[in-house]
């Protein structure tokens, strides 16, 4: 068993008691709520005559069904089902007295973009949300877990979940990223090496020199996709980068409380002599940009590397998955993904919908145009991200290049809001899942990659190595990503 890791310390501090079935009752310090997985939980609560016990630890927004065109957001929403979900959420949060970042709040967006940028997600917390990408908040040195609706009911009623402690796998990431290679490529490389179910039963602790050098938005992208590697949670020990990001954010502590917080945050990190259940090293020195070639996030190649041949795969499961993928994606083993034609370019999501993501994509789009055959969408992860990008003039770069500059939400990541693929369209996507049907068409095809690679594919109309494209001057240089405006 692991000892003295951040995970052990956070678990110990949040453990209420051991339940008769051997699970621990774990207190949840931050509960994030959205419209899709919560209405049934609110109904269950009502049936039992129970209330939300810790309303101050609970925050809600709307993301999955949020329309991304200005006219689409007029109420009532055009889609009856979406309107019903949003109204139910509004009624529920009102009755329970929860803070709600609604469409008109200026702070609405994807839960996993909103909570970090408002300073709600902090080191040493437990975070739960009815969404598997709750692992994202681990970037702060928190333990974020995705939960089902019955567990949401548990958190509403008791502030707790019943949980089994997992094993901790330390993932040391070493090597220097070249130009055109990003945090997204690191997590795709990790899933490529450890597999889509490699993390089952584990929490991932990401560390090492390459992780230490990443900014918070890169760290968020990495922790976000822990679940794609099978790990329910993934985290990074907090450091100066974390603290600098948090300082002066709306919900971050201030004054004397900040100093108290720092002390706690420093104490929560894994000790130098911490014991892990498992340790692996991933070398990302000189990796090329990565893209998926198949129908799960572990089917990944460097853009310069041929699609693997199922005949050379030893594991039966891997072979079968590859054969399904060749047929769905219409790819041939032995070929690279370079030149694979693209119909749609999609930028955004809880993985890559933050300001730095749009900056990197804009740097590629500067002075270029989206290929005529490509439909291109840029969907900020939150209204805060959108405002910030617009303040930098990034929206103009996207619009001039031929992108649609949309309103905040989950959008085409899972196609619940009307933004979706049609027929066999291929989407170059900065999202996190390439499952069949995920983007709204069962024949549709998703290729996962970094935002810069999405921009490059949009321009060329096919997958291309972004390193071969000159990078335009960033519109506005600004070392501090989103720090100072957070106090607005």
């Amino acid at each position, binding site marked *: 068993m692991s000892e003295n890791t951040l995970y052990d310390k956070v678990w110990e*501090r*949040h*453990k*209420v*008691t051991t*339940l008769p*079935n*051997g*699970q621990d*009752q774990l*207190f949840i*310090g931050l509960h994030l709520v959205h419209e*899709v*997985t919560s*209405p*049934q939980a609110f*109904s269950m609560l009502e049936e*039992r005559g*129970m209330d939300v016990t810790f309303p101050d*630890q609970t925050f809600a927004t709307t993301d*999955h069904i949020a329309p991304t065109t200005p006219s689409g957001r007029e109420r009532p929403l055009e*889609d009856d*089902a*979406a309107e*019903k979900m949003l109204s*139910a959420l509004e009624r529920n949060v009102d009755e329970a007295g929860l803070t709600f970042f609604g469409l008109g709040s200026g702070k609405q967006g994807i839960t996993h973009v909103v909570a970090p940028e408002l300073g709600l997600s*902090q080191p040493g917390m437990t975070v739960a949300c*009815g*969404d*598997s990408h709750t692992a994202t908040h681990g970037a702060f040195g928190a333990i974020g877990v*995705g939960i*089902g*609706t*019955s*567990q949401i*009911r*548990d958190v509403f*009623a*008791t*502030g*707790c979940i019943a949980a*089994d402690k997992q094993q901790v796998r330390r993932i040391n990431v070493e090597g220097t990223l070249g130009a055109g290679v990003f945090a997204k490529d690191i997590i795709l490389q990790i899933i490529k090496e450890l597999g889509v*179910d490699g993390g*089952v039963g584990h929490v991932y602790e990401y560390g090492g020199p390459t992780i230490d050098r990443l900014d918070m938005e890169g760290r968020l992208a990495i922790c976000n996709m822990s679940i794609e590697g*099978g790990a*329910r949670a993934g985290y990074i020990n907090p450091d100066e980068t974390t603290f600098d990001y948090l300082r002066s954010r709306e919900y971050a*502590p201030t004054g004397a*409380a900040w*100093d*108290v917080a720092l002390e706690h945050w420093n104490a929560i990190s894994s000790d130098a002599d911490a014991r892990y259940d498992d340790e692996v090293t991933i070398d990302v020195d000189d990796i090329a940009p990565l893209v998926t070639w198949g129908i*799960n996030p572990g089917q990944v190649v460097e853009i310069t590397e041929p699609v693997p041949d199922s005949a050379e795969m030893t594991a039966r*499961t891997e072979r*079968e*998955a590859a054969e399904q993928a060749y047929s769905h994606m219409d790819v041939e083993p032995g070929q690279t993904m370079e030149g694979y034609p693209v119909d749609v370019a999609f930028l955004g999501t809880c993985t890559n919908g933050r300001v730095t993501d749009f900056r990197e994509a804009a740097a590629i789009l500067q002075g270029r145009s989206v290929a005529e055959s490509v439909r291109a969408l840029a969907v900020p992860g939150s209204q805060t991200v959108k405002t910030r990008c617009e303040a930098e003039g990034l929206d103009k770069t996207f619009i001039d290049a031929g992108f649609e500059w949309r309103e905040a939400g989950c959008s085409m990541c899972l196609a*619940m809001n009307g933004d979706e693929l049609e027929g066999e369209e291929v989407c170059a996507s900065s999202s996190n*899942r390439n*499952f*069949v*049907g*995920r983007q709204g068409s069962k024949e549709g095809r998703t290729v996962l990659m970094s935002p810069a690679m999405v921009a490059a594919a949009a321009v060329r109309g096919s997958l291309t190595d972004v390193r071969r494209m000159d990078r335009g001057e960033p519109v506005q240089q600004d070392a501090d990503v989103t720090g100072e405006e957070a106090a607005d």
Partner: protein
Amino acid sequence: MSEQRIAQVGGTAVPIPGDDVDTDQILPARFLKEVTFERMNEYLFYDARRDEDGALGAHPIDSYEGASIAVVNSNFGCGSSREHAPQAMMRWGIDGIVGESYAEIFRDNCKSLGIPAVTTDHEAVEALQRWIEQHPTGEVHIDVREATVEYGETTLDVEIDHAMREALLDGIWDTTQLMYSNLSKVERTATNLPYVGGFDSAD
């Protein structure tokens, strides 16, 4: 709230072959746009069940109507946290699952719903899937207490997660009331967490 103890489930079975069957296949996202779980059974494997012209028939779900036990392969239920996926299976008629392995959130959701999800190795799962194909009206029984699966003349030893087994046998798979009874302890834990009080330095 007292709940049903679940020691045994069984009936005819449906093989759902394939590894990494994700929640987007089990319950496509566009059907999440409902505020209740009531109709989820209608959307189970919605896309996978239909051919290009929208005709049903190719998926085992349609050939094994009335089945109570699903037999699946590895990493079943990976992807999103949507409880809609096991809800859809349960409302379609599934009372228990035998598989090689499950994604964790999916397994937790099964536990919340009182659906035993047991595991065994690949060979045993394949043998069971073949047996069902040959005996579509044959019954498969999961014994939670003994951790066995019985079909035909065969009794298989299977694994069942300890917490799930205890919760099902004790009838406390719905943990809300149980955890609520510890509320004073919860409040103590919360008070001891510096961030819950906003890092009030007076603590």
